[in-house]
């Protein structure tokens, strides 16, 4: 805005607001999905990496900003190799431990001899050891997956990029995960802010880096609601089900009616989960809003006007659609999510495209080492 016609200075004018535009059509994506399905079956699942790539290409290409669509430049073979690598890395040690040491669970009903107790101790030691390792791998894979997608996404011919170490992120996630267990979940909002800040603050688009000032302030209210609500649901269900089991036991003898007992067990398992999934939507909405508000790229600011109701209307139908169609609604779920993002994410400010150069960060690393993207296939 540098013309000399006495225009209002840019700083005082309302900055322009841009939105993503999504043009995906479920019919088109559904055909891609069906072709993938058929070829995946024919190739015993191996085609799915190429299939997933084709789906991403479609979704990316139907999403645009300033009239210019995104481009996904990843290739199926990269996902496939990443999957093979992750397979060896994750299953290798587990399989090796169990077969190499000849660990076997003792037969149920048998008396536990000294040797079997040793076997049991060894088994639990392996499980104890394997759990944090798998958790570490999970976070490493999460970072690697994010980095892969960012690095394989371009807009206006300019790539995204990530710096930072997947392993450092892995240990960060592992440490925060443990803390979360120790505090019965009360560090989650803070841990989420740390983890997202780490990832977002190391994300580049072209020659510019995103900045994140995310902290946990304002996130605790909605989280506490979900935590306490879930705790009440758990307590209430236990109280109710103990009563019910007693009544049934009195009616039907000691064994009770298996069907009723099973139904109650299912209700105990499911109800707190449903309550949690519903209430956590408020927290997720607050987190997304906060992430957007604290994110900046050069002179561009972000907003995500997402409410509790918005998140409920996105997530709950998504979960139900996938569950009740055995996954056949996947294309529709993907597109509703993409439309949701396009509808809610706002870019405030001039996007000075002429000033953005190609990504320098991490450029030689992309698409080369398998370490860059292992774990993609398992997510």
């Amino acid at each position, binding site marked *: 805005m540098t013309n000399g016609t006495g225009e209002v200075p840019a700083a005082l004018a309302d900055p322009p607001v841009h939105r993503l535009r999504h043009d995906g059509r479920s019919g088109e994506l559904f055909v891609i999905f069906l072709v993938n399905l*058929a070829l995946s*079956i024919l190739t015993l699942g191996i085609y799915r990496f190429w299939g997933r790539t084709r789906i991403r290409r479609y979704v990316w290409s139907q999403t645009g900003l300033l009239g*210019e669509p995104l481009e996904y430049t990843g290739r199926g073979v990269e996902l496939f190799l990443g999957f093979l690598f992750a397979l060896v890395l994750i299953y290798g040690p587990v399989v090796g431990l169990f077969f190499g040491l000849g660990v076997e669970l003792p*037969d149920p*009903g048998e008396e536990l001899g000294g040797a079997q107790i040793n076997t049991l101790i060894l088994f639990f030691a392996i499980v104890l050891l394997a759990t944090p390792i798998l958790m570490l791998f999970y976070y490493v894979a999460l970072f690697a997956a994010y980095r892969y997608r960012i690095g394989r996404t371009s807009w206006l011919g*300019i790539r995204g990029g990530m710096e930072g170490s997947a392993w450092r992120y892995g240990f960060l996630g592992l440490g925060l995960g443990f803390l979360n267990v120790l505090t019965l979940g009360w560090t989650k909002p803070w841990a989420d802010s740390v983890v997202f800040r780490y990832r977002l603050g190391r994300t580049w688009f072209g020659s510019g880096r995103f900045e994140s000032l995310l902290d946990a302030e304002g996130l605790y209210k909605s989280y506490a609601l979900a935590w306490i609500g879930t705790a009440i649901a758990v307590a209430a269900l236990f109280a109710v089900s103990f009563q019910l089991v007693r009544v049934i036991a009195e009616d039907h003898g000691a064994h009770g009616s298996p069907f009723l007992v099973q139904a109650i067990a299912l209700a105990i398992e499911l109800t707190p989960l449903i309550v949690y999934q519903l209430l956590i939507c408020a927290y997720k909405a607050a987190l997304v809003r906060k992430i957007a508000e604290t994110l900046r790229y050069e002179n561009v600011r972000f907003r995500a006007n997402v409410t509790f109701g918005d998140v409920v209307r996105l997530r709950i139908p998504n979960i139900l659609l996938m569950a009740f169609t055995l996954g056949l609604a996947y294309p529709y779920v993907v597109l509703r999510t993409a439309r949701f993002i396009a509808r809610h994410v706002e870019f405030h400010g001039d996007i000075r495209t*002429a000033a953005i150069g190609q990504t320098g960060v991490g450029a030689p690393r992309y698409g080369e080492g398998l370490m860059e993207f292992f774990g993609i296939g398992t997510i």
Partner: protein
Amino acid sequence: MTAWGASADGTYLDGRTARRHSVRASIAADGLRIESGDGAVAEIWPFADLRLVDEVYAGRPVRLKRKSGGERLTIADAEFLDRLRPHARQLRRKDLRGANTKLRAAGWIGATAAVLAGFWFLLPLAAGPVASQVPLSWEEGLGRTVQRQALALMASGSRVCTGRAGQRAIERLVRRLSAARPSRYRFRVTVVNDKTVNAFAAPGGYIVVFRGLIDSSSGPDGLAGVMAHEMGHVIERHGMEGLVKALGLSFIMSALIGDTSGFSSIAADVAQNLATSKFGRDAEREADRIAVEMLNRTGISGRGFQAFFQAMARKSGTEDKSIGRYFASHPATGGRAQFVGTHATGTRPAMSDADWQAIRRMCRG
């Protein structure tokens, strides 16, 4: 413009900055010519190097790139592609504008269904030959796992019965039956303290007998018949075939869902199937035939076995749920009793009365 006649307005990106250049793209003799008004862009992309960035659907812009390089050219007027295609036939593959989406979807649904149906019908046919190729050591390992899973699935109150005299008596019986029809299997019998009338055979010779079956049997001959029947399942590898089928199905399912972690639960599923239902009518008939053959060769009377089936046939008509399990999926128990009656020739008892009492007592203490 040129002799080739076709040109269109477009946007050009050089892959170095995000700046967009307005360009005119025209079909020239040596390729696609791209020129901007300010002279910043002046390129010719050879036809053979042209690629579509993404699949082009009706009503969407056309995005072009070169075989290698970060430059991109977007042309809003998709009809330009029609004029470009004769020069660059490789562009046809990703041009889906004219594709009949519904027809394609129907075609692929049909193809997928045909493939699934093919698997569905071929799997049972292939399961037998595949199962017969499995080495004995694998089969025994799998059987051990399946048996363990099945025992773990049962009610927590039911324990393995450890009466030594009874266990020895059952093993003697199984050795005798096994000698009558030699096979590669070593049979291992576990008696479980559970009132259900049930018995099942896991692959590799692992047989589980429930106390309820022993209790409901009027004498050792009935037990001998059931044991021989279960041994018949092992010898004919019915459990192994079930595993192969389950593995094949789960392979298809994981291909459908895209999840490879499901394989670990197959043993549990098979165990559940073994414990709750049986193999199938033909498999049962085959096991009965082998059982009668074993009984005849050892001279053990088939009366008890026949009486067992008759008792089951009577009880299956009643509402008593405790007996239902073993024959739940096979209502033709009367016919099976008749088969045993007409073909069994033995007359001798299966074991001494002392042995039979030991077996009956093996779950106490």
